[in-house]
């Protein structure tokens, strides 16, 4: 199964707060140019895993290699170089509230690249158009945006430097099903045109079916199941079973089954 090299390698990772262990000797690979969906019950440690990989939370044990670099062993310059190669979409968008949308997208460019204001403007508008916004939206402030638009701007900012990996923390939470569907499609299209690797933490079953290549299920601080959606449907793990074949998952599973005969 190693036809593509792993861009993120997590080995034997332990993360905890005070006397609670959230991630308990966890192993995970994210392969190049795939969309990996990470699911799990609320509080299972999905966001903790994401935040640990991008270096926001300290780990107790284990190694994390992103694009061949171990953050724990790298110096300041290596860390900065690595951080330029990924983009992060936070759950609430985390847009800078005192900057306009355009300035938000330009912020990473301004800090990291030596390019003219004209090119920066053109690139920012290009990125906004790529995520489905109009140039007029560029002059708005984050407090004037709807939830869906905030997510789109945050995605445009995450993509500002053409990263190799994009981390998405619940990209479709808080969106209506139609917007969420559009957003999944957007991620899929962008991933294909830009050939990026996407690490997506999600709760949204639809996203898992429509956008993700592979799924990793987190429970009890470990990855209990990993593979395609079909592998998930066949899994015997009780939580995975309830999740994918429960009331909401069941409907989608049936749809998946009924489309399969024609598909294959």
């Amino acid at each position, binding site marked *: 199964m190693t036809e593509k090299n792993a861009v993120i390698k997590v080995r034997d990772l332990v993360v905890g707060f005070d006397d609670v262990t959230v991630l308990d000797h966890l192993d995970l690979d994210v392969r190049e140019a795939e969309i990996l969906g990470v699911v799990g019950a609320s509080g299972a440690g999905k966001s903790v895993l994401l935040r640990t990989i991008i270096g926001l939370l300290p780990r107790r044990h284990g190694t994390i290699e992103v694009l061949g670099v171990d953050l724990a062993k790298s110096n300041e310059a290596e860390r900065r170089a690595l951080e330029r190669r990924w983009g992060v979409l936070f759950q609430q968008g985390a847009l800078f509230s005192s900057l306009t949308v355009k300035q938000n997208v330009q912020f990473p460019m301004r800090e990291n690249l*030596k390019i003219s204001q004209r090119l920066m403007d053109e690139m920012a508008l290009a990125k906004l158009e*790529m995520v489905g916004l109009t140039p007029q939206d560029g002059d708005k402030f984050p407090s004037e945006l709807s939830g869906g638009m905030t997510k789109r701007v945050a995605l445009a900012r995450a993509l500002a430097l053409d990263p190799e990996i994009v981390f998405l923390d619940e990209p479709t939470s808080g969106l209506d099903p139609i917007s969420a569907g559009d957003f999944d499609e957007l991620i899929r299209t962008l991933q294909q045109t830009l050939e990026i690797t996407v690490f997506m933490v999600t709760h949204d079953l639809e996203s898992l079916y429509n956008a993700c290549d592979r799924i990793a299920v987190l429970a009890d601080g470990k990855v209990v199941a990993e593979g395609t959606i079909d592998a998930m449907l066949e899994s015997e793990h009780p939580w995975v079973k309830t999740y994918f074949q429960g009331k909401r998952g069941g409907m989608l599973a049936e749809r998946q089954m009924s489309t399969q005969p024609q598909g294959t």
Partner: protein
Amino acid sequence: MGEALLTHKLVGERLELAAGGSWTASHAGELEALVDRVTGEAPKAEDVSIDMAGVREFDTFGAWLLERLTRQWTGSGRKAKIVGLPEHDRGLLKEMHGVNREPPPKPQARNAFVSFLAAVGRGGADFGHNLVVFSEMLGAVSMALARVIVRPRDYRLTSTVHQFDRVAWQAVPIIVLITFLIGGIISQQGIFHFRKFGAELYSVDLVGILVLREIGVLIVAIMVAGRSGSSYTAELGSMKMREEIDALRTMGFDPVEVLILPRILVLIVAMPVLTFIGSMAALYGGGLVAWFYGGISPDIYISRLTEAISLTHFEVGMIKAPFMGLVIGIVACAEGLRVKGSAESLGIQTTNSVVESIFLVIVLDGLFAIFFASIGM
């Protein structure tokens, strides 16, 4: 970097460009200069062909610059052709082909003088608006107070006690320290200058009257405005940002009654208490300095003090205190509710809150001075 990003060669009427290396974000700066230069390079050339076969890395920055290059050529009625672009990069170029088609919205150019006039006008209007906002807040607080007097069980006692602890009790050490030092400084300056006339003893009158009538209450009011007024504004402002105030309203609570009334009542009570403590600390500091620096023994200091000051001086200071508390509270809460979505606006309103409340406290003090003078206190 070894490879040239863009080289050009003129073949008859035709400009042949060969691209190479990394057409990515990290080289975007150099690449942009090259792309812009090459358009002016061959004014006679009729068409251009761009060979992308040598490009190793290609991202949206590279794709956009390639698109910009072709647009610059085709825009002037000439032909442009891209060859040798790998299959998997075509999607990216196609994506870029569609963007930036409509001109970006132009920032509105303004005459400097007109914007200056506009700023002055806005300043004036804001001042008027501020007065309206403060009177509205005063009205809302009075209404809430009236409702609470009718139904005292609705009053938030726990919140009041908690606020009193923060605003009054926890402020005591810093207020004692500051007023103690200021009392000492006034005393030292009085002794130093009065000594020339041999009238050191009058420095006790100076300390007593100044501290009890003006300095005690003013210093405490300024400290409270900086310490508690700012925290009221920041608290209410971030609650407003996170829609907590809207949540209260939808649950049928009046934010003024729940959040603001207890805070303002606490300030009205805390100000006289702190003023009393502060004035005593200032008199004590003045006394110590008089003893060690001016050689005025505590016995003489106290007897001189009782001669110099009357209850009226003390009353003048204490009467002002609750009104100053009211002003600080009203300004702080009104500014807090005016916070909008951004972190910057929270900062601006907090600054405004402190500046305005200190200004109003001093104006109020001036008005009281006129009032007390005219009634002979």
